């Protein structure tokens, strides 16, 4: 293999392309989305908080997935991904902003989390009180954001510091830190999923829930990366940096995590179905009536079988259009998945066993909140995309990535 060289002009957002204005587009989406969400907020604040929570969790899953990707690349000393890692790094560096985006969740905590106003007769909540109490809940939330922001900053700053071409030794430090980083990440994202998603239905519990959330967030991350890279390449950037080989690998991850998601989702379901214990089946019980059953029945097909069979072929993964279609499909399904996790809990407070969650009712506030929060993500993401190089060209393994091939 002859050594490839990359022109510096490939590593910046091409002038006049829409990517140069991504932060402004994000800002516009944020203002419009959150504005529209707030406009409808007065009608039913409790419902409004649920819409927001859905948007918040969906976008957070992307930022967290990006961090997992970056950490894993260092952990396994990957070479192939150096040309695409910066995209995930930009996504990861949005995590500090989520501390601000968490404020509405705090304000709506009483509407979102039933257990915050625990009734004395509720045996389950009393037993869970040492963990599920407001004080500890906020301490944990602060801890998550501090840990995520620190991890993101430590990795982002050093990766960007290499852009000038020197300081290759920084990679060593990041590799050494990565096992601790991945452990911190795994525990914090898992407990965040318990706190912010699972505790929406406080009687219910599933030890595998954090992994389920992780599987979805990785699907979102790889699909998002594939789409951003395709867009940047269409605009004329990264032409020699990212090749079909990289898309093929991203496609393999999308395929693999599709299987992983189904495996984890089914593992969670089957044990609960088999044991048939009231406080466990409650989760699925609410989701098997009043409109939710359509999503519950569709998910195994649309979130698993369709992308599984579609992405099974090597030719689809190596084809830009094929991979783009797969990525959009997976992102839409992931959004539906989070919606299905969050929204059935709305107004399910105080339901006695045997009573169903209220009817599924998608409203404009859900879309507005999702667009708004995602707009905030894009603002930061776009700002970083334009501020720094598009690829970690200073990494010692960058050349390995240029010549990467699947054998």
């Amino acid at each position, binding site marked *: *293999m002859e050594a490839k060289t990359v022109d510096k002009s490939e590593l910046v957002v091409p002038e006049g392309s829409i990517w140069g204005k991504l932060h402004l587009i994000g800002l516009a989406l944020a203002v419009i989305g959150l504005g529209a969400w707030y406009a409808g907020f007065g009608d039913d604040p409790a419902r409004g908080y649920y819409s927001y929570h859905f948007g918040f969790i969906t976008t957070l899953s992307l930022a967290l997935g990006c961090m997992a990707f970056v950490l894993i690349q260092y952990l396994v000393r990957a070479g192939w991904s150096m040309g695409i890692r910066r995209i995930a790094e930009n996504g990861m560096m949005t995590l500090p902003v989520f501390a601000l985006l968490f404020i509405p969740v705090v304000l709506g905590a009483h509407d979102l989390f039933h257990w915050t106003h625990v009734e004395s007769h509720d045996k389950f909540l009393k037993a869970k009180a040492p963990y599920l109490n407001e004080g500890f809940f906020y301490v944990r939330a602060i801890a998550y954001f501090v840990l995520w922001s620190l991890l993101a900053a430590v990795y982002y700053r050093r990766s960007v510091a290499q852009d000038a071409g020197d300081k290759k030794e920084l990679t060593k430090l990041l590799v050494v830190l990565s096992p601790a980083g991945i452990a911190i990440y795994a525990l914090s994202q898992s407990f965040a999923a318990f706190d912010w998603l699972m505790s929406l239905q406080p009687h219910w519990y599933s030890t595998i829930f954090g992994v389920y959330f992780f599987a979805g967030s990785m699907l979102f991350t790889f699909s998002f990366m594939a789409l951003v890279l395709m867009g940047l390449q269409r605009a004329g950037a990264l032409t020699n940096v990212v090749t079909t080989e990289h898309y093929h690998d991203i496609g393999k991850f999308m395929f693999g995590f599709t299987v992983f998601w189904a495996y984890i989702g*089914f593992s969670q*379901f*089957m044990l609960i*179905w*088999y044991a*048939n214990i009231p406080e466990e089946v409650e989760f699925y019980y609410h989701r098997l009536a009043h409109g939710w059953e359509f999503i519950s029945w569709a998910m195994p097909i649309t979130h698993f079988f369709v992308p599984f069979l579609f992405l*099974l072929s090597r030719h689809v993964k190596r084809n830009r259009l094929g991979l783009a279609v797969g990525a959009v499909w997976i992102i839409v399904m992931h959004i539906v998945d989070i919606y299905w996790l969050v929204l059935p809990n709305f107004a399910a407070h105080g339901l006695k066993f045997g009573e169903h969650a209220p009817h599924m009712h998608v409203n404009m506030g859900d879309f507005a909140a999702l667009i708004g929060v995602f707009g905030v993500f894009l603002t930061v993401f776009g700002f970083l995309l334009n501020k720094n190089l598009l690829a970690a060209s200073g990494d010692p393994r960058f050349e390995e990535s240029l010549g990467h*091939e699947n*054998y």
Partner: protein
Amino acid sequence: MSDNKKLYGLLAEYDSASAIYTACEKVRDAGFKKWDSCTPFCVHNLDKAMGVKPSFLPWLVLGMGITGGVSALCFMLWTSVADYPLNIGGKPLWSVPAYIPITFEVTVLFSCLTAAFGMFAICRLPTLNHPLFESERFKKVTDDKFFIIIEAADDNFDLASTRALLEGSGAAHVEEVEGEL
């Protein structure tokens, strides 16, 4: 063993990975079908230089995987619903969730066994002896030499012109190999 052995093919020896790489491209472009290269280690992209077509093994694996999954599911349906119905915990007889893990495992089992044994079959393994083993020089293939073998059974094979092609492709040595597979 009779004295007039049949010609198996022409064996060309090369000294380096780059030499065999360009030689493979020449042999590929000459339109040969029944030929192969043997190297002491994996030379990346040599399959492209040889113009190796994608294997049909994946389709076999897909077909057998589906066969395995469907037959496992049908078998459980038959045993639990038709042949020997048992009431387990009051669950319906036809309880798909309970059958999924086994369906999954059997799908994987059929796929893996097909992949492994299909590969054996396509590579015609086990082959207990091979005419190439008669060549003293070929023993270096596990050490530091690279070889191309063009079979006499190939339609394009012609002793004189094929030898000229191999010699012109940078071969350090070309010899005739006799014997039958």
